[in-house]
Each structure stands twice: as structure tokens, then as C-alpha cells.
């Protein structure tokens, strides 16, 4: 386990860093679909692990026992129709078994009907613009100031001093918990992509095209993501933050935004 020992050696080097925050796996997320996506991911991961154990096991067995140094005399067989049929059919069966739940999740993922709330997100180089269609409110959302200061090449501020470095915005998207939120995505310039891992949706924002996707967050909290399609020099600097709040708090937020002057929305 060279990797493990190296890992811990490097860990010592970085004793001050956020060692405990190490994530190894896809987040389970906070929507029904994100959980389903996570399950699919785990199923196919375990399928791969088991096939790996079987194939690599056979290979390692062979490497140990079928060596010339171990005095093994080479057999001269070069085909076996039975074996070849077996190892063609078994993978087909496994694939079919995986295709069914995958197709089911995909159908749900594409079902954007009957939303409770519709948000139009327009991508710009390099920020997002959000418009709540029925609430009549809109605003730009860009990288928060502390990250902006620390991201420069000659910056004296260390990224380690910034909370949620590169994953914080000035104005987050706020949505009510339990509501089906439909997201309409487009772009003003180049192709971008809207991605929040905990919500398990990623969709491209393409100029001239309106894409749809949806999520229903089931837990109150703050969820962070980033632009996921290369969009120019500041591609790494246009994060997405979604705050999922109780319906009352959401209504209060909408009211306060509408009361505060419109200039906030258009100041950018």
C-alpha cells in the first residue's frame, strides 16, 4: 500500500491544512435525484470493483504461478469457444442490469413539468445572472470580494485565510426547501455550465439556446458549485451558491429584495 503510506507522509507535510475535510466520493446530495445518482454511481463502482477483483485476481494468479522462473511449462492452447461465449454474454447481462436503473433516473432527470418556481440563469463571462420569473426579481451573482482579493497572482492574502475560497458569491440564489425549482439556462457569450454537486444537476448554458433542468432540495442549507465548462480566463472564478431556506424565509427574502431598490438588481 504505497499509495496509503505516501498519502499519510504527504498529510504530515500539510498538517495545517484541512485534512479532515478530504472527500473521496461523490456527495449523496440533498435531492431525491442526487441520491439516485449517487446510488447509480455506487452500483457501477462496485460492479467495476468486482470485475476488477476477478480479472486482476486471475492475472495476478497467473503472474505468480505461471512464471518461467517457477518452472512452469507453457501450455499451447490458443482458443476456447466456450470461454469466449461466456465472457461475451456475462458482460452483456451485467450491462443490461445497469442500463435499466440508469434509464429510469434519466427519465426523471428530464421531467421538468409542473415546477413551483422558475429561475432563468444567464451566463456571462464571468458571472451569473438570475431572474425569478414569477417573483419579478433579478440580480447578478459573482465571486465574493475576499476570494477576489486572494486569487490574484501577486496577492498577499492567502487562500487559506478565505472561508469558502472561490466558492462564495456576493448574492446567492435563494430557493425554498421542498419546492420543485425549474432552471432555464442560457448564455450571453460563450458556453458555460451550471453545476452544484449536492443538487446533482449540471447543464450547459449555451448562447442562443435555452436549456431546462430541475431540482427539489429536501434539506435547508447552503450548496456550492462552479461553472463546469471552460469559458475563458476566469472560468475558475464564477461560482454558484444556492441557499435552500424554509418557505417563510424565502418569502421574506423575496419581499425584502423587492422592497430594496431595483438598482441593486441592475447595478452590475
Amino acid at each position, binding site marked *: 500500500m504505497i499509495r496509503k503510506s*505516501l498519502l499519510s507522509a504527504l498529510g504530515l507535510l500539510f498538517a495545517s491544512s484541512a485534512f479532515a475535510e478530504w472527500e473521496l466520493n461523490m456527495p449523496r446530495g440533498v435531492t431525491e435525484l442526487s441520491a439516485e445518482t449517487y446510488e447509480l454511481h455506487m452500483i457501477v463502482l462496485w460492479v467495476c470493483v468486482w470485475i476488477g477483483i476477478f480479472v486482476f485476481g486471475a492475472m495476478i494468479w497467473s503472474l505468480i504461478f505461471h512464471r518461467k522462473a517457477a518452472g512452469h511449462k507453457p501450455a499451447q492452447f490458443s482458443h476456447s469457444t466456450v470461454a469466449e461465449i461466456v465472457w461475451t454474454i456475462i458482460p452483456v447481462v451485467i450491462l443490461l442490469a445497469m*442500463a435499466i436503473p440508469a434509464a429510469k433516473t434519466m427519465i426523471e432527470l428530464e421531467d421538468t413539468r409542473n415546477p413551483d418556481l422558475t429561475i432563468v440563469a444567464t451566463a456571462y463571462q464571468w458571472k451569473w445572472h438570475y431572474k425569478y420569473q414569477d417573483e419579478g426579481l433579478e440580480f447578478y451573482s459573482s465571486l465574493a470580494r475576499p476570494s477576489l482579493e486572494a486569487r490574484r497572482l501577486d496577492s498577499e492574502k492567502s487562500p487559506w485565510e478565505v472561508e469558502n475560497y472561490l466558492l462564495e458569491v456576493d448574492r446567492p440564489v435563494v430557493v425554498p426547501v421542498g419546492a420543485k425549482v425549474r432552471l432555464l439556462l442560457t448564455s450571453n457569450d460563450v458556453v458555460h455550465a451550471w453545476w452544484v454537486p449536492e443538487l446533482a444537476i449540471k447543464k450547459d448554458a*449555451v448562447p442562443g439556446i435555452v436549456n431546462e433542468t430541475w431540482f427539489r432540495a429536501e434539506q435547508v442549507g447552503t450548496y456550492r458549485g462552479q461553472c463546469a465548462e471552460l469559458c475563458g480566463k476566469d472560468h475558475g472564478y464564477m461560482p454558484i451558491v444556492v441557499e435552500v431556506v424554509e418557505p417563510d424565509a424565502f418569502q421574506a427574502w423575496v419581499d425584502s429584495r423587492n422592497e430594496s431598490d431595483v438598482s441593486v438588481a441592475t447595478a452590475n
Partner: protein
Amino acid sequence: MTTAVADAHEAHDDHGPAKGIKRWLFTTNHKDIGTMYLIFSLTMLFVGGAMAMVIRSELAQPGLQFVHPEFFNQMTTMHALIMVFGAVMPAFVGLANWMIPLMIGAPDMALPRMNNWSFWILPVAFGMLGSTLLMPGGAPAGGWTMYPPLVLQTGDAFPFLVFSVHLMGLSSIMGAINVIVTIMNMRTPSMSLIKMPIFVWTWLITAYLLIAVMPVLAGAVTMLLTDQFFGTSFFLAAGGGDPVMFQHIFWFFGHPEVYIMILPAFGVVSEIIPTFSRKPLFGHDSMVYAAASIAFLSFIVWAHHMFTVGMPLTGQMFFMFATMLIAVPTGVKVFNWVATMWKGAMTFETPMLFSLGFVFLFTIGGFSGLMLAIAPADVQYHDTYFVVAHFHYVLVPGSVFAIMAGAYYWLPKWTGHMYNETAGKIHFWTSTIFVNLTFFPMHFLGLAGMPRRIPDYSTQFADFNFMASIGAFGFGLSQLIFVYVLLTSKKGEKATAEVWDKPYGLEWTVPSPAPYHTFDEAPEMPVRSVH
């Protein structure tokens, strides 16, 4: 075939290579051209590798330490273009040039002058591409995928990018035509198609893929060119065009392209594993059918690179199922390699070590490929470091290891001397350790939510990135051992014609080093010797 060689010395038109630089500029000899391709490819490996070092230096820690984001994007774009078109593809063409005529008993490639031309286009293409680093606006920075509208924001480099891609395509197409014509017309008469060595077979299939898709890429970049300079709107929404159409066209080229880079690798390891297992290749014919199935499927899976682009549900379904199907023929190949080793009498010289590394690590890349095929999960994986881990596993310990394996395997045939086996083994083990240290943590980074193609990242990704950077530097330095092996390759003991322990194939019937001209007369198929 000692007789063939003896005849060659007496033949009235026999002459050695020209003297000095003319030998290399004007050569029509498949061995010289093969050597030039291989040296060019190695040079590009180091150039593209140096760019990877810039990338990994910047990513070693959060925050920007060395380069601006603009330059970082230039590095990722150029690294990919150089490695794909400059390192991996020419390496396989080099191996094809050297080995296909020797393996099928042909005196040379069928179209030797075109062969010279298709090589010499490459330094021009890459000189042009490299020169963009010095131009106003810098080198292309929109990714090797060249998605519009972003790629149209490239500065003065843009037309040079397009023309260099045209040249690379031209070179590849001519190389592919040459391979097909050679294989179809110049096989020794006793070698039927199905009896051809697997390396020849995989290259034949690859050559058809190249001819089918390189013009598609050329068309796509030409449309970019006219969009930029001649007022067309193929991909511009404002003029009624569709940016997504470019992605479809690009990946219609791009997916077969990834098999162009892996099928010859399958061929190389399928030659090596039987030799060092002292057993015939298991399922020779099914290997051929599997390679052909993979090639066919490669044309109908392109949109799995685009699951987040906003496709109709039925489209996504089709591309998901078709992609999953690829696992079947690929699995057959892996099982066949394992079955070849099974009950063999294996020894572990450097070519075998690299081939075994290939089978293990390519399979890991295949597994992550299967995971990526599952469309809803791909929504999470897409454009993250998980994808970066996946394609580097199939390309580095996949294609590059196979190229290394082939280079070690045939090096004594090329130089006439055994290479330094100890150095070779050190090269293998350091490469293997560091390649895993580089790319394995990237799976975790991607799953934890790190997008690809970013110059800076949030602090929770710091540790794995630091590991990957250490690994990358180690891997880069390990390749210097290979240079050492090459520089000392003529110092070892004299190689016999067979080089290894009773390998099977026509290339082992000519002396080592292979004479400048071989197979003036068509040879008979050799008889397989029993161990």
C-alpha cells in the same frame, strides 16, 4: 530469412542510405521515416510534458503562484494538442512504418515518397502551432476541443491553430492511406488477411478510422475559420447558427480519435504478451473482431461527451446504451490477454512489464469509462477531474505505456544491440508508481467536485492536488531514464535475429539490426516454434 538479405546485397539497385542531412530530408525508406516519426514523437512528449509541468506547478497549491489564468489555459490547450497529435499519434505511425513492412514481409511502404511528405508536414504543423505562443493574444486557450464561441476569442493565433490542425490531418490521412495500401497490396502471398499479426490488424482498422474522421475535423475547423473571417454563422447563434452543432461534429471526429490512439496500443501488447508468455495469442480472430466492433461502435457514441449539453431524452438513451456496449468487445480483449498469460511460462523483461502495466491500468481507465457511460452519473462526472483521471489513465498508462513497451520490444531489432535492461526496469517501475500517484487522486478530486481546466481551486482540494503534482514531476523525470536507455542503446551486447525467446513473426527472421533493405523477395510465413 537469410536468403532475402543475401540477395539484397547482390541486387544491382541496392544502395545504402544517402550521406548527411539528405538521408533524412529525402529518405523514402520506411525504417528511416519510422525513426524520424519516433524521435519527433519523443520530442513532442517532452514539449507537451513541459507544459504539463507548468500546469501541475500552478495546481500544486491553491492560489496563483506562477502563471496568469490566460497562460494556464494556453498551457492546457497546447498540452492536449501536442500530446494527442504530436506525441501519441506520430509514435504509432512511427511503429507502423518500422514494423508493418517487416511484419508482412514487404520491402517498404507502398507509397514511399508520400511517406516522406506525411512525416515532414508534421514539424511544420507543430512549428506553426508552437509559434502561436509568441503571438499577440498568446496561444490558443479555448481547450483542444476548440468549442465556439470561446475559440473565436483566440487572438492572432486563431488562423494558425486552424491551419496547423489542417496540416496534422493531412499528414494523418496520408499516413493512413499508406498503411492501408501497404497492407492490402504488399503482404507476402502466404499471409492471408486473417493471418496477419494483430498489430497489423489494429493498424489497418485505425487507418480506416483516420480516413473517415480526419476530414470531419478539417471541415469543423474550416467552418470555424469562415465564421471568424468570412461572415458565416455555422456556429454563431446571433446569425442563426448553432454552437452545439460544432460539438456534435467535433466529437464525431473525437470519439473515433480516442480509438485511433488506443487500437494500435492493443496491437502492440497483443504482440508482446504472447512472446513473454511463450504461448500463442489467445483468440487471435476474436481479437480482430473485437477491434473491428470497437471501431464500428466508435462512430455511434460521440454524444456521450455531451450529456449535459441539452439533448432529447431519446438521444441520451441511445448514446448511453451504445457507449455501454463498447465494454463488451473491450472486455473480450482484456480477457484474451489474461487467457494468453494463463498457463504460460512468463518472464518479465521491460516490454512485458510495460504491457502488464498497460493491461492493469488501461483496465482501470476502462472501468471509469464504463462509469462515465451511465448518463445520469455522468451529469456529476462531466467536466470534472474524474474525466481528467479517466482519459489520462487510458492515454498515459494506456497508449504511452504500450508505445514504450513496443519501443523496448523492437529496439534491439532497430539498433542491433540489447538495451540496458536494468535501466528499462527502473524506468517501468518509477513510471508506474508516479503515474498512479499523479492520476489516481484525480478521481477523488473529480468526485469531490473539482471542475477541470481551472487554474486555481478551493482549499479542500489542496492535498490531492499536491500529491498529483509530486507524481507528475516524478513521472516527467522518469522519462529521462528512457532517454538514457536510448542514448546507450548501442552499447549493449549484440542482439540475435530473434532477440527474445522464440518470438513468432516475420520481423524476427531478419537480422538485428534490420538491414536498410529487407524482403526484396517475398518470404514464406515462418513456422511457430514450440517452447
